[in-house]
């Protein structure tokens, strides 16, 4: 019962907040009011039963809270704002466009990426501040401050400008990555950000079913997430893609992701998420690492490097080229590439190892180990450096 109420509340939250912000602006005030309404519902509904129109109930309660808040501030406020009190509450039927507008507002370019992520999870995802803080491993007070500052920034932002879906998709992609690169084993209290990102992308997909890049983003997330059971071993160490036990990949996610990817690609022209989803689908299609269709993957990366060039894409392209034409061909692509962090050194090390340039490979592994910000990656890279015997 209570879990059902929680799900229902999280589903209603963005629609209720969207309706209120459309009516009252003042994002910060509305968001506080919605949180209070959700809290009241969480306390009352399990005992007293879910009202016939949960959305309408939440809108009415939150609307009253907003009015109370405006009243208590109104002494020092302009007359127009007091007039707003006379307006009837927003409609009690959910309006899907409100949710989309809200999503776009939470991803407003005036906010820094960490604030966009936090606010989207809170206002659209319905996670509590404590849950978001635990997901990003910062104290609750720090996250509360980040969210409150973001809400203030949005206070007077226009609710009706059509949001930029490109930014929204990028924020959802970042939420997914944050969850995917977090190690699964060590902290069970961390909420599952990959699941949340998938849920929110499904929501966006429902709101804009014909948007192919959103279809592709959902496909990419499902196909990537399908590998999760195989990407760490029993000891929690990372397992590279080529060494993963593919029987442990999630077949249901692969089937859904592949179907979505095919649908998105069929319509063309191809955007960056469509190409990435296509690449993930080719990997998912290979029964063993040796079965991988590297020719197709190289072609897709070449396209991606054309329409959305970045050092990361070139790096991945180099890996694929090395599989197809040998490590020296991959290494050639890395020449002159500049990229912060450890990944460039890690890929170089791997290709040098495959080219039997062991001394250079060992140095590159150690270089990468020193650059990574992740403990499991560091252990992995140092292990690789240790097993290489420098050639005499």
């Amino acid at each position, binding site marked *: 019962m209570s879990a059902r109420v929680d799900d229902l509340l999280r589903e209603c939250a963005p629609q209720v907040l969207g309706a209120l912000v459309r009516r009252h602006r003042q994002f910060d005030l509305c968001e506080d009011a919605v949180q209070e309404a959700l809290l009241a519902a969480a306390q009352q509904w399990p005992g007293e039963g879910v009202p016939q129109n949960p959305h309408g109930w939440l809108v009415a309660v939150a609307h009253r809270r907003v009015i109370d808040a405006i009243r208590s501030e109104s002494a020092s406020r302009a007359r127009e704002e007091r007039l707003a009190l006379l307006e009837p509450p927003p409609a009690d039927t959910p309006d899907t466009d409100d949710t989309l507008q809200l999503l776009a507002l939470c991803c407003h370019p005036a906010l820094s990426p*960490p*604030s966009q992520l936090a606010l989207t999870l809170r206002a659209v995802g319905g996670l509590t501040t404590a849950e978001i803080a635990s997901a*990003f491993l910062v104290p609750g007070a720090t996250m509360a401050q*980040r969210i409150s500052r973001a809400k203030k920034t949005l206070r007077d932002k226009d609710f009706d400008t059509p949001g930029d879906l490109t930014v929204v998709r990028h924020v959802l992609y970042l939420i997914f990555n944050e969850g995917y690169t*977090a190690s699964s084993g060590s902290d069970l209290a961390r909420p599952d950000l990959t699941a949340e990102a998938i849920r929110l992308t499904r929501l966006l997909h429902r709101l804009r079913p014909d948007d192919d890049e959103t279809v592709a983003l959902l496909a990419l997330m499902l196909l990537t997430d399908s590998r999760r059971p195989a990407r760490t071993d029993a000891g929690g160490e990372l397992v590279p*893609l080529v060494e993963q036990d593919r029987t442990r990949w999630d077949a249901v996610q692969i089937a859904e992701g592949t179907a979505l990817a095919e649908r998105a690609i069929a319509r063309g022209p191809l955007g960056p998420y469509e190409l990435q989803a296509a690449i993930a689908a080719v990997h998912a299609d290979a029964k063993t690492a040796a079965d991988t269709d590297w020719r197709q993957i190289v072609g897709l990366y070449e396209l991606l490097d054309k329409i959305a060039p970045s050092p990361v894409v070139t790096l991945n392209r180099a890996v694929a080229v090395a599989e197809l034409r040998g490590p020296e061909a991959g290494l050639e692509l890395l020449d002159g590439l500049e990229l912060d962090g450890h990944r460039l050194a890690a890929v170089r090390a791997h290709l040098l190892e495959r080219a039997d340039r062991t001394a250079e490979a060992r140095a590159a592994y150690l270089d990468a180990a020193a650059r990574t910000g992740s403990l499991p990656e560091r252990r992995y890279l140092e292990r690789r450096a240790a097993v290489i015997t420098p050639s005499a």
Partner: protein
Amino acid sequence: MKFMLMIYDNPDTRAVFFGEEGKPLMAEMEAIMAELKESGELVDTAALGDPAATKVVRGSGVVTDGPLAEAKEHFGGYLIVDVESEARAVEIAARWPKVDTAMEVRPLLGDGGEEM
């Protein structure tokens, strides 16, 4: 990205900071701290007690008084920040008031990782 900003000081600079002269410096510090709290970037911060109060515990279990080494500078306090980039962490360190002291900006190791 989380970074530790490590503050290195010495007895002379400590005396300045904690004395009358140090008041404007302390005020500057408070202002930066308030700004970092407000922006949601501050994760944790603390000033360390006097180095003389240090106990050193060696691998053998032997406990001795005093800091590890006679150094000109010692670790005096830290801030942990969660910021967008290394550049931002360095910028915070650059603004931190210093009297002949130095700061180190070092990334924290996380438990995440990518399959490679």
